[in-house]
């Protein structure tokens, strides 16, 4: 739960306690009454769950969608700096079976991310918030954001596989600095996407 929500709930509880004191209750009884009015922790947590899930899904989706072009640019620069486009055999001619599939896999992951991103933004925006059955948009957003995390994992793993294959099989020199920067960025995003994906799956499971 973020600090702003904690501050707001704290203010509400203290206001309720103040109102009970003003009505004549002692400090301890006023505090107990305010806490009782607030509701059972499980009830309050369940009420907050869709809203928090929607926020988390939107945050994860936007972060991954924003880093996508940046990481793509890093890999593109690394490929250009290595002269891959002109000086080396293209990846589909590398002597590793199936490595050429990395490119359609990356394209499919990018397209999937785009669709899932649009769904996440719609479900967590004004449209999703106006629905009375609030758990459905939150579940949809969690699923769509998890799909984006899986697509990011796919892209990063495919790019890293291409780099490793290129280093092991293709001839010629490598521009190791830009390749290392791109690989580090992909590894970092891979770790963050995996963690966010696990969290989103757990959150979705709690949205009954």
């Amino acid at each position, binding site marked *: 739960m973020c600090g702003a929500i904690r501050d*707001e709930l704290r*203010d*509400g509880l203290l206001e309720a306690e103040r109102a009970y004191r003003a009505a004549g209750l002692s400090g301890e009884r006023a505090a107990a009454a305010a806490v009782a009015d607030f*509701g059972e922790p499980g*009830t309050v947590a369940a*009420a907050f769950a869709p809203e928090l899930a929607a926020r988390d899904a939107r945050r994860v989706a936007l972060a991954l969608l924003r880093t996508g072009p940046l990481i793509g640019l890093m890999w593109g620069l690394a490929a250009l700096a290595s002269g891959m486009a002109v000086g080396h055999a293209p990846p589909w001619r590398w002597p590793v079976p199936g490595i050429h599939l990395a490119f359609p896999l990356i394209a499919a992951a990018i397209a999937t991310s785009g669709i899932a991103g649009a769904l996440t933004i719609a479900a967590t925006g004004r449209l999703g*918030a*106006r629905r*009375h059955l609030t758990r459905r948009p939150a579940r949809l957003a969690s699923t769509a954001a998890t799909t984006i995390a899986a697509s990011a994992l796919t892209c990063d793993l495919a790019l890293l596989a291409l780099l490793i294959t290129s280093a092991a099989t293709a001839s010629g020199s490598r521009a190791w600095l830009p390749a290392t920067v791109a690989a580090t960025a992909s590894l970092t995003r891979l770790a963050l996407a995996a963690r966010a994906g696990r969290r989103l799956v757990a959150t979705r499971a709690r949205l009954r």
Partner: protein
Amino acid sequence: MTTYMQADTLKGHLDALLLATLESGPRHGYAIIDALKSASDGQIDLPSGTIYPALHRLERAGLIASSWSTSSGRRRRTYELTAAGRRALGAERAAWREFSDTVTALLEPRPWPATA
């Protein structure tokens, strides 16, 4: 006998009730909860902790807006209706009146058409 309205009874109407409490001006979270309780003579007595997520959702929907201030050394979030919220409240109110009039008319004792 007093019947307290539970969350299930209010499902689908809570948004409109929250918007209505803000029609006369901005209020902070507890003031909204207190207004609901007082104006309904205590019949609407939901766990106050469950009102906040509904307010956050209404803000995300663009129907209310919030601002932070400091009161008695505490951070306080105050909500107010947006123009879209005012329109939504008007629409909800009209829909409720129509629904309520229809159900009330049907529930009154009356001679019903005979079955064939």
